[in-house]
């Protein structure tokens, strides 16, 4: 508790538990906020802090402010990986711990509960996902568990909102709760802590040192004895035995449902691989390509923005100042009013093309991608896909888990680069970041490219584009696996149950992510449009295009107009793809340019994140390699494709 004179006292309430048990759903309820919720272990990678929501009547009464903390899932408090140590620090600092466990996996989850109880922290155990337990005819004897642990135990079904108001009240009454007592500390385990209790400040640290946590020992100037690890093993065995006994007594047998059988089928190598092909085809080609980028964008762009909005804007601005629609000559000094008009409503006008791109193209594409992705995430399909691709990804220096950032990269490569934190070794992080930067298109780019490819002639161009990327992906991975020193991580993971996604969560997540994407894209779009318009009215654009023309013509066999796409693509890759929609190209040229723009340099935001997550040298290495790769492969395709398409 932090006491500051004259101010409310802050009570820190930490939500702690194994991954995927519903901590973030509980957090969102308690604080009325939204942090990401997905059906796989490791969704939360950073601690979130919020204030407990209070009703109008509760606000003035309380002398306390309640701070709620959502932590990344952990399996044990001692011997954590580097990124997990933050969670431990929040646990040590917390005034109250809400230990969220899943009613579906008490045999696993209660291990952490016991460990937290042995730390002597004030705690409530929340048995969540109780609705699913009921569906599986699992009967949980709450009283038995509560007595055995010496702790208060509550049931909840967080996604249905059940049991959460009771939890909120429990937290509110925490201070006055006279019956509050620490959990039952296991006698046998306590014996191991006794030697350290005199040396350190608190019981929690003593326990962690007894469990051979080198970092906590060092922080307290204690040298671990040589038998420390065997002590840990003994403590773990005691705890495990106690949990096994408790679960046998308090939890009934499970009855599996048809959804569970479906989940098992997705893991079958043959059925699973076929399903993966169908999922990719449906999601990328049918949904994103044909429906979103084709039908929806077409309608919005041509029937609304180009039919009504742009002419309206041109008339409006044109009635005040003159403009040129596609002039490349310099008018800035001879006729500044005309130059301004051109910047506003010309070919690349800030008020015309930019707005159309943003709202008729970018918005539906990004929203569509995130909606599809949210569905895959919440259904529990992704971890099953991770199992299927583990063998392949291992030979590329990664492991199955890398499929999550790689797929998220299809949304926004920048965000996905941050998610590589859920991978365990430096080597696999580096390879995943490199492959994301080099070969994975972001949602907007993906959408436009899908649309372009579908428009020119169905499945074959799509297959060539996808096949080339896949090949580059595999070959780059193979090479990097050889070149990058170090160990690749091994895939050991929980597989969550298959769940029917909840519509509200799908929408919340999709809207949230789309907002983040658009907030970043909108200013960048305007700046890019402004830069291009200014280049246009000053006549500089003409020079750049003339200068780059021979490179594009000789290397990629492309017309000079495409230069603009490349310039824009360096700022954000999706701009590059958008520019292409206006240029008449042959099928072979279009596929070439789509491949080149996908492989082309990662956008500025991604480069910034790469520098943050890795360093400048690696970011620049990836940036330069992408130039070489994109132009090299483009040159080959430009010469081969005319014979195929």
């Amino acid at each position, binding site marked *: 508790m932090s006491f500051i004179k004259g101010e409310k006292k802050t009570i820190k309430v930490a939500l702690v538990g194994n991954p995927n048990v519903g901590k973030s759903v509980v957090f969102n309820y308690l604080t009325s906020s939204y942090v990401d919720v997905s059906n796989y272990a490791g969704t939360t990678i950073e601690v979130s802090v919020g204030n407990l929501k209070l009703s109008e009547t509760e606000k003035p009464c309380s002398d306390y402010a309640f701070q709620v903390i959502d932590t990344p899932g952990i399996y044990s408090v001692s011997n954590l990986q580097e990124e997990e140590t933050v969670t431990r620090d929040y646990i040590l600092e917390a005034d109250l711990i809400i230990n969220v466990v899943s009613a579906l996996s008490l045999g696993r989850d209660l291990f952490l509960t016991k460990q937290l109880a042995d730390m002597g922290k004030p705690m409530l155990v929340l048995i969540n996902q109780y609705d699913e337990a009921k569906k599986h005819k699992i009967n949980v004897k709450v009283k038995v568990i509560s007595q055995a642990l010496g702790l208060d135990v509550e049931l909840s079904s967080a996604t249905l909102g059940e049991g959460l108001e009771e939890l909120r009240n429990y937290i509110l009454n925490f201070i006055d709760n006279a019956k509050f007592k620490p959990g039952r500390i296991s006698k046998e385990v306590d014996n191991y802590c006794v030697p350290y209790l005199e040396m350190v400040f608190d019981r929690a640290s003593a326990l962690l040192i007894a469990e051979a946590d080198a970092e906590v020992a060092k922080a307290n100037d204690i040298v671990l004895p040589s038998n420390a690890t065997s002590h840990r093993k003994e403590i773990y065995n005691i705890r495990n035995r106690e949990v096994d006994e408790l679960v046998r007594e308090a939890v009934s047998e499970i009855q599996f449902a048809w959804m569970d059988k479906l989940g098992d089928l997705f893991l079958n190598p043959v059925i699973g691989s076929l399903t993966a092909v169908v999922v990719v085809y449906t999601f990328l080609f049918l949904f994103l390509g044909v429906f979103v980028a084709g039908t929806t964008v077409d309608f919005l762009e041509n029937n609304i923005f180009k039919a009504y909005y742009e002419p309206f804007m041109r008339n409006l601005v044109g009635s005040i100042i003159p403009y040129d629609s596609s002039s490349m000559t310099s008018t800035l000094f001879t006729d500044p009013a005309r130059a301004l008009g051109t910047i506003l409503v010309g070919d690349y006008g800030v008020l015309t093309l930019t707005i159309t791109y943003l709202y008729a193209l970018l918005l539906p594409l990004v929203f569509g991608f995130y909606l599809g992705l949210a569905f895959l995430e919440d259904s529990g399909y992704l971890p099953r896909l991770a199992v299927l691709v583990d063998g392949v990804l291992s030979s590329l220096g990664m492991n199955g888990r890398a499929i999550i950032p790689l797929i998220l990269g299809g949304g926004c490569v920048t965000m996905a680069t941050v998610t590589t934190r859920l991978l365990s070794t430096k080597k696999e992080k580096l390879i995943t970041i490199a492959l994301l930067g080099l070969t994975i298109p972001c949602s907007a780019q993906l959408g436009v490219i899908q649309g372009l490819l579908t428009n020119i002639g169905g499945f074959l161009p799509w297959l060539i584009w996808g096949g080339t990327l896949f090949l580059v992906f595999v070959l780059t991975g193979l090479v990097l696996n050889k070149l990058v020193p170090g160990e690749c991580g091994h895939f050991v993971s*929980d597989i969550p149950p298959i769940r029917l996604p909840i519509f509200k969560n799908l929408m919340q997540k999709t809207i949230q992510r789309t907002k983040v994407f658009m907030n970043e894209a909108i200013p960048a779009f305007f700046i890019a449009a402004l830069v291009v318009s200014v280049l246009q009215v000053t006549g500089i654009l003409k020079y750049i295009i003339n200068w780059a023309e021979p490179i594009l013509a000789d290397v990629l066999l492309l017309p000079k107009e495409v230069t603009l796409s490349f310039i824009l693509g360096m700022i954000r890759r999706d701009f590059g793809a958008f520019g292409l929609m206006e240029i008449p190209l042959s099928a072979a040229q279009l596929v070439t340019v789509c491949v080149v723009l996908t492989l082309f340099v990662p956008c500025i935001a991604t480069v910034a994140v790469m520098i943050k997550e890795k360093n400048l040298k690696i970011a620049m290495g990836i940036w330069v390699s992408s130039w070489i790769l994109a132009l090299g492969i483009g040159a080959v395709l430009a010469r081969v494709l005319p014979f195929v398409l």
Partner: protein
Amino acid sequence: MNLNQVKPGQSIKIDFIPEDLELRLFSLGIKAGDSAECISHSYYGPVVLRKDRAFNQVAITHRFAEAISVTVK
């Protein structure tokens, strides 16, 4: 036999887990002495196990599975 030799559908008892893997599997609820069912196992892919009386499944990479001794029940 080792865990890699187990086929989907078989029930097994885990006899031995090498020390360097123990902690990692332990946290997922898997330890020597446990009984489990193999849910899926592809050629070079991970072995997916479900412990008896448990709902959650655990995937263990090929490389690790090779070092784990089991008996088929």
